[in-house]
């Protein structure tokens, strides 16, 4: 994928008629039933929905952790459907960053080493790795904690380390799956402000799954998934207006 591809296609993410079915026969479960979605570069999108609505499945497809049963998925103009496990891993390695609900840092490993991990898989040299990891930790305000092991950090700090790990590789898209699910309100606010700042200042495209409306309010566009379909897809301003009208 080159930048010219990227420019030629204005959407970084383009889903057309995507379905996802788990199991076969009578036991088959249709988690997604035909989703069309476009996300432009630099957007901050929140995906909302009740549990079982299909939002996590959508997230896994967008994050190339899984591939659709039918339909097409263009990421930066390149078809993602039908890629092998290895190819999807390479897409994740080079273009995507992830933040999970459970932080998912390596235990007994320092903050700096955790942030270095994706750079290690990219084959970045040791010196550059260190430098870029430090820069990412600095961006989340945790540089003084770089040599603390992950279990010595608070939940909020761990999640910020996870954000640093996700942005250390300068990803095209940052995927956040319930990033504040395990955090108290103060830590949640810090993490959300951090993600918002990264989106606004560094222009990182953010796709976030959440079921908390307060968190979704940080996004500029909110997509609601219900029964495997996109039920509503509106910019935040509109949504706020609707609320006010109501």
């Amino acid at each position, binding site marked *: 994928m080159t930048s010219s591809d990227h420019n030629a296609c204005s959407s970084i993410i383009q889903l057309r008629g995507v379905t996802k079915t788990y199991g076969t026969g009578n036991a088959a479960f249709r988690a997604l039933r035909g989703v069309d979605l476009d996300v432009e570069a630099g957007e901050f999108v929140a995906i909302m929905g009740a549990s079982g609505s299909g939002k996590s499945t959508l997230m*896994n497809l967008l*994050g190339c*952790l*899984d591939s659709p049963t039918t339909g097409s998925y263009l990421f930066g103009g390149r078809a993602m459907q039908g890629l092998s*496990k*290895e190819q999807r*891993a*390479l897409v*994740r*390695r*080079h273009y*995507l*960053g*992830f933040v*999970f609900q*459970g932080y*998912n*840092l*390596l*235990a*007994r*490993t320092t903050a700096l*080493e955790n942030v270095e*991990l*994706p750079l*290690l*898989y*990219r*084959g970045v040299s040791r010196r550059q790795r260190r430098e870029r990891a430090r820069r990412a930790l600095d961006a989340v305000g945790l540089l003084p904690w770089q040599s603390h092991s992950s279990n010595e950090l608070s939940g909020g700090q761990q999640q910020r380390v996870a954000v640093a*790990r*996700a942005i250390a590789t300068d990803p095209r898209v940052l995927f956040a799956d319930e990033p504040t699910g395990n955090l108290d309100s103060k830590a949640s606010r810090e993490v959300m402000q951090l993600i918002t700042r990264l989106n606004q200042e560094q222009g990182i495209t953010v796709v976030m799954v959440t079921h908390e409306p307060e968190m979704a309010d940080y996004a500029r566009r909110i997509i609601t998934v219900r029964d495997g379909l996109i039920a509503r897809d509106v910019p935040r301003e509109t949504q706020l207006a609707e609320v006010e009208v109501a």
Partner: protein
Amino acid sequence: MFWSALGIAVREIRRNLVRAFLTVLGVVIGVAAVVIMVSLGQGATESVTSQVASLGSNLVMAIPGQGMGPTGGTAPAFRLSDATAIAESSPGIRAVAPVKIQGVNAVYLQQDWSTQAVGTTVDYFSVAGWEMAEGRGFTEAEYLGARPVCVLGETLVEELFGQQRPVGARIRLKTMTCEVIGVLRSKGQGAMGQDQDSVIVLPLTTVQRRLSGRVGNRDVARVMISAHDGASTERVVRDVTDLLRERRGIREGEDDDFSVLDTKEIADTLGSTTRILTLLLAAVAAVSLLVGGIGIMNIMLVSVTERTREIGIRMSIGALPSEVLLQFLVEALVLSVIGGLIGIGLALAGSYALAGVMGIPFVFDPEINLIAFAFSAAVGVLFGFTPARRAAQLDPIDALRFE
């Protein structure tokens, strides 16, 4: 890719040293057992070989009966005349010493010691490879005159004389008093574990006339034959066998009722016996190495389950399944290689100490150390593969959700 996998593996091992130690333990014990067994076996082989060599150089022995054990008792003994005839039988023969063995109790003042009296000729000392530590051997004149003179082995000197000087003293054997004229230089333990230094050497004539009484007094227990340097001992064995068959009236097709043994052959026989034992012990030890390998597989499998989340994290941020496979494989390899090195270290210390205790030489054989090391590495790859493949086949979504 290998180097980054190595870096990750080393970091993972360092993060959990107790687990690493337990994993490695089996391999350590296995490698150490194999190397110790083989080293000690080789030491034993070497010591047997050198002891057989201490019997004398180019030595051929004729004994009545078949085989080396006491089973030859029923065959008729040799006579002194056989020895004389043997000396003429082959051009390769340098010297011949008939040996008559008689159990005696040696007494000096208050001390006594049961031992073997060896009655022989003057050539015995050179044929059997004895050197004098002190004094001299007996002379031809003393042999012909059946003089009461004797030469003592080291053990007898210690037991009878302690710190006193034995040469010139008189000891009593049965009813005979004889003068000590020399002391033999120590040869140490024999190939069968017997004490070669517990011996008294006298002229054969003296033993026949003064110690044996009348019965069988012309018999000799065996004839020791020394071949010239460079002469074919095989030829000597053949000539002596032909001569003895003729003299003992054995017809064509009948079996020998005596044995003619070449010390080289004895050494080979004993050497191959100890080698077989060494192999057997090493095989038993190799089983423990195998068990060590299974231990690695076991702990690696548990660790894959335990680290499912970690694998999920690595895959979600872009680790390829092949990289996860390599990481776990390299981890198993590093563990077993470390185990192999520790095992070899332990084995060197252990076999050095044990060789000292058992009184055999310490042998360092680079080959067996290399083999054991390579084997331990192979164990790591072999038994690390199943857990590594299982880790690589995990789905990142499931792995992340795993609690």
